[in-house]
């Protein structure tokens, strides 16, 4: 404030004198004038944001050299010598359109100086043009980026001494282990294996019977039988579907500004679960979600409905429904779709190029708006009302259609009768008219309704211009033809998009063509992560220039090709991976190796994994015998005993238990859930009603099964508790310590007179202690 005041005081007398001398060209066009009147203003008010030294260059405009000022920024030339009216610098200073400087208009005298300076030729001695700080992306070098190269077709290596490894995965892994002087961990024991496999594939612990039957099965392929059983289980889709739902930000309410319920979002979720259970090839899985509505309509209703339901993926994102600038609302939705699709399918952060060329990756704003055109040409919103409504479409049903047609005449008749009565009696409030009106309304209400799914529709295709700085009110000069990102099409050609089509189907087909360098790599890297806890390439949703090489590049490419060879069958890939020695290794750490390879990048052993929120909750209900395994549709609330995947997800009030265990982000693509350890989790185990109730249930079940009061009976109970929660029997020392706990607890609870109730309480305490144990929450 003080500075500005001083500037005004100094400038004012000078301005006065300059008016007197304004005929003298030397004065207004000369270097002196620039140095005394123009440069100080630029330095004080402009260069912080408009020079090569700016931390962030605003509007792409630099005013630190003559050349740059003439070139201008996003909006055009800042200075047009001789033409103050065409110079954006002047209109911005006058707060006409742009408002510069943003903190307050400069005095009129200063603006007059600038006008005069420009009118007289805009003399500017500053020739030195320093390069901006951040170097632009080198597109030629980017073409060599590992992830943009075609998939290699590596042959699994032969490792001397390890000929018994018939699974190619093991040979790739062993190659690096041998080269770096490590040996693989031994195979995990059978109890560990079945527990690991069951959580891995269906997200639940094995039953005691399943463990026992596996332990007693001595056949060579006993584990393969377990894997086959789990892959055939209808609960497989509930586990693996949830992973996919994380990527596509599934939820049951809108969140954002208006948290409206999304009453049909669950139909998309059920589609995901069903398709994974059916082992729908992953290429179709992707195409259906992006463009199912554009595929030829299958003859049977349920398949046709499925194709519509699949596109719900595009619609379930959060939207600013009450944004009053509806054009902004639409383009924001397009952006949200681009972000989700590009990170999920391409492993690229294309969304970064909305406002400027991507800072790190070869994705330009042109690329962004070429892609945006595709989604802009797709209708995701039903209207542009004050609070707008997203798109829903009816599920095809011949049955409902026929019932509607049968019902319509009843309505027509009733309406005719209503009109007749009205005109006859000439009184809308007359008894017969009112009665008939009620009858009509009742019939209208009884009209059979189609079931609706969230879905999209191709809109009038339209190419979008680049929006300068991401501002939809500042369109660039010409529309960019709809297309796929150019750096990728140079590696892997894409079909051009016909004028009359949105391009969604072309995009989908291009993504899943076998030569695409990213889709299968990104997908199989995720699959690996979900089996091992850690991916081969450590930023699973960012395969851009900043991504590091995978730990096992050849293995990644081999797996990607294998997925294609196996006709994109995910279940075959699961089996291949689970039957590998690599997956079956023990997770036990070995001292010195951990120091040399702390992240287990080389896959010396399996990784120990903390269970996610859903399996934690499901396992608690499972232990208490209360888990309801009904499939499909949506649970009424989070108190329901259904599996966690069926609980409603309210973006504005997330179920506390979920957020406590790291399922937090319901509005964004989640590439990998964090696994934090916070005291809130401990409090949940110690005090939550869920744990309290399930420990009591579990105690009741065990006490009932073991009626004996003898010490042997108590030991049997302890063993049952361990087996139920940890899939193993306790050691002798653990039994002794457990007995001590029960006797301590019995004393502590002496105020409970009834010995049975006391015993029950103490045993529930034992169950809670085991639930608090690391062994319950972690899978070895």
């Amino acid at each position, binding site marked *: 404030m003080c500075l500005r005041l001083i500037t005004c005081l100094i400038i004012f007398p000078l301005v006065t004198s300059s008016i007197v001398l304004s005929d003298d060209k030397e004065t207004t066009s000369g270097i002196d004038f620039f140095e005394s009147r123009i440069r100080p203003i630029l330095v004080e008010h402009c260069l912080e944001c408009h020079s090569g030294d700016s*931390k962030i260059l605003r509007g792409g405009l630099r005013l630190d050299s003559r050349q740059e000022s003439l070139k201008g920024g996003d909006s055009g030339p800042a200075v047009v010598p001789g033409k103050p009216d065409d110079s954006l610098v002047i209109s911005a200073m006058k707060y006409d359109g742009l408002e510069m400087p943003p*903190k*307050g*208009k400069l005095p009129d005298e200063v603006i007059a100086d600038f006008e005069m300076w420009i009118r007289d030729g805009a003399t500017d001695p500053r020739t030195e043009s320093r390069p901006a700080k951040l170097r632009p992306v080198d597109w030629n070098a980017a073409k060599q980026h590992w992830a943009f190269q075609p998939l290699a077709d590596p042959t699994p290596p032969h490792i001397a001494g390890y000929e018994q490894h018939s699974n190619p995965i093991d040979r790739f892994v062993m190659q690096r282990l041998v080269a770096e002087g490590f040996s693989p961990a031994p195979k995990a024991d059978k109890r560990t294996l079945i527990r690991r496999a069951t959580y891995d594939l269906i997200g639940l612990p094995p039953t005691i019977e399943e463990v026992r039957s596996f332990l007693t099965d001595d056949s060579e392929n006993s584990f393969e039988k377990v894997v086959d059983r789990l892959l055939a289980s209808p609960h497989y889709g509930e586990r693996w579907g949830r992973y996919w739902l994380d990527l596509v930000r599934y939820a049951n309410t809108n969140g954002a*500004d*208006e*948290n409206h319920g999304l009453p049909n979002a669950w139909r998309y979720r059920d589609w995901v679960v069903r398709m994974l259970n059916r082992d729908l090839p992953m290429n179709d899985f992707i195409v259906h979600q992006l463009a199912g509505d554009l595929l030829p309509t299958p003859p049977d209703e349920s398949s046709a409905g499925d194709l519509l339901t699949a596109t719900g993926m595009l619609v379930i994102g959060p939207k*600013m*429904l*009450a*944004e*009053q600038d509806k054009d902004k609302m639409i383009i924001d939705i397009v*952006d949200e779709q681009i972000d989700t699709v590009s*990170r999920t399918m391409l492993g690229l952060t294309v969304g*970064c190029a909305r406002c400027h060329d991507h800072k*790190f990756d070869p994705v330009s704003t042109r690329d962004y708006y070429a892609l945006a055109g595709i989604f802009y040409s797709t209708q995701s919103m039903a209207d542009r009302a004050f609070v707008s409504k997203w798109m829903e479409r009816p599920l095809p049903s011949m049955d409902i259609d026929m019932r509607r047609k049968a019902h319509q005449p009843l309505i027509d008749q009733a309406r005719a009768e209503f009109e007749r009565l009205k005109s006859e009696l000439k009184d809308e409030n007359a008894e017969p008219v009112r009665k008939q009106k009620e009858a009509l309304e009742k019939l209208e209400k009884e009209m059979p309704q189609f079931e609706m799914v969230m879905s999209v529709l191709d809109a009038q295709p339209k190419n979008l211009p680049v929006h300068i700085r991401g501002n939809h009110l500042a369109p660039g000069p010409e529309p960019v033809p709809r297309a796929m990102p150019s750096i990728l099409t140079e590696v892997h050609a894409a079909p051009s998009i016909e004028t009359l089509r949105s391009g969604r189907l072309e995009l989908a087909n291009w993504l899943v063509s076998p030569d695409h360098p990213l889709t299968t790599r990104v997908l199989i890297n995720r699959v690996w992560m979900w089996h091992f806890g850690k991916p081969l390439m450590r930023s699973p949703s*960012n395969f*851009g220039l900043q991504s590091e090489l995978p730990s096992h590049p050849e293995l990644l490419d081999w797996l990607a090709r294998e997925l294609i060879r196996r006709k994109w069958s995910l279940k075959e890939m699961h089996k291949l991976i689970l039957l590998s020695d690599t997956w079956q290794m023990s997770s036990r*750490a*070995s*001292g010195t190796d*951990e*120091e040399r390879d*702390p992240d287990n990048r080389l896959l010396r052993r399996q990784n*120990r994994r903390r269970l996610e929120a859903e399996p934690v909750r499901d396992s608690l209900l499972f232990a208490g015998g209360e888990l309801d395994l009904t499939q499909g549709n949506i649970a009424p609330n989070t108190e329901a005993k259904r599996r966690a995947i069926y609980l409603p997800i309210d*973006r*504005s*009030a*997330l179920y506390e238990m979920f*957020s*406590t265990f*790291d399922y*937090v982000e319901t509005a*964004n693509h989640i*590439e990998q859930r964090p696994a*934090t*350890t*916070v*005291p*809130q989790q*401990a*409090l*949940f185990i*110690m*005090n*939550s*009603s869920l744990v*309290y109730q399930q420990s009591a249930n579990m105690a009741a079940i065990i006490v009932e099964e073991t009626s004996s009061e003898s010490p042997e009976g108590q030991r049997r109970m302890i063993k049952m508790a361990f087996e139920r929660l940890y899939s193993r029997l306790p050691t002798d*020392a*653990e039994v002794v*310590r457990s007995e001590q*706990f029960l006797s301590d*607890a019995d004393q*502590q609870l002496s105020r409970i007179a009834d010995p049975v109730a006391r015993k029950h309480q103490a045993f529930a305490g034992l169950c*809670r*202690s*085991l639930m*608090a*144990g690391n062994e319950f929450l*972690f899978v070895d």
Partner: protein
Amino acid sequence: MNRRQLLHRCGAGFGALALSDMIARSGLCAGESAADARGTMASNPLASRAPHFPARAKRVIFLFMHGGPSHVDTFDYKPELIKHHGQPLPFEKPRIQFAQTGNLLRSPWKFRRYGQCGAWVSDLFPHVGRCVDDITFIRSIHGSNEAHGGALLKMHTGSDTFVRPSMGAWISYGLGSENESLPSFITISPTLGHGGVRNFGSAFLPPIHQATRIGSAKKRKAEEDSIVPNLTNPDIPAELQALQLNFATDLDQLKRPAPHSMADADLDARIESFELAFRMQTEAPEVLEIDSESESTLKLYGIDGGPTDSFGRQCLLARRLSESGVRFVQSSHAYWDQHSDLKEQHGTLAEQVDRPIAGLLTDLKQRGLLDETLLIWGAEFGRTPTAQGDNGRDHNPHAFTYWMAGGGVKAGFSHGESDEFGFYSTKDKVHVHDLHATILHLLGLDHERLTYRYGGRDFRLTDVEGSVVDQIFA
């Protein structure tokens, strides 16, 4: 030797742990203090962290007036509005408006000057008026979103387009907690609409930084309010719980005898988290006990069963939490959205908050807490000087007023101006991003250096915007 090993060697356990803590805190024992224990917590994301540069404020209390109180009826005096009442706005209205408005509408309230600084305050806020010599007013705040949801998200997270962490979450991430038994970010009576939890969420930051909610605008039953979910379970006696936790710890030791390798860090951290949780059980509920305050304090906040009672409790609770070391406390009040009924509703709402707010400011000052506590008052936007109907005003994100007190800002000061009617911010404009940058700066955080890497790039609260308004610094 870490704390856990120490305890085990002493043959003690969870019960004894709490006891030793109580002794340590009551000053009877010069043993290890809670602060020392924090050092041994493996990977504690709430551990207190040094700021980038010396901080002027240690913590924040944000009084959020949901709905958008009218600046031209409260703290931004516009005599021209009186003169031109009923006339059309002599310049263009914004391109996007939430609702259509008509001609200029003068304020139904009288303004008067208060204090040494002579700041104008309307008769809606007489109690706050008497505190103006402790306050810096910023009358040139502007945002970009004209609807509640977008504007709330912009104000809380800096973005009305993308899902981003809340300001409180950023501050928690930047500075950690001063009290490891309490969350670092607490929001009292937040709205569940208009962005809901996203306004208080951690987005891609570690979830520990999201706000803990106490009560909500919808339901505010005392018995449902807990400072931390699952803090207690009346069905489990504390002694039994201590036995359980000792038992669980011993089983862990039997399974994994020491020494532990670095690969066991996650398991060790989890055992330690139970210790912390056990301590939280006893400490956290004490903070909520408002009724232990003196009669005169309750009176100061207007906790007397009248209209000021509810927000008075919120303000007093905010002080207790802040005093206990909670980094960022937000206390929300609703619902200032007077498209009509301005005179009656603004009157009622202001009456509910005026005395409690002044009480909080006075109390902080009396306790010597104001110097290190930044008190902020504001909303998602202001309201138009033009009338909606004949007794209402529309949303106005183009100019509105915030005020701050304590925490290193000037006392009895004003910064920035809106135009003669209060429609647009004109002089020394302060955008929402600038406000964020300034708040972070007061806490010793450089908004350009407080970053988090996610999805391949570094994110900031202020994205690529924001400049610090250092003119308001004391």
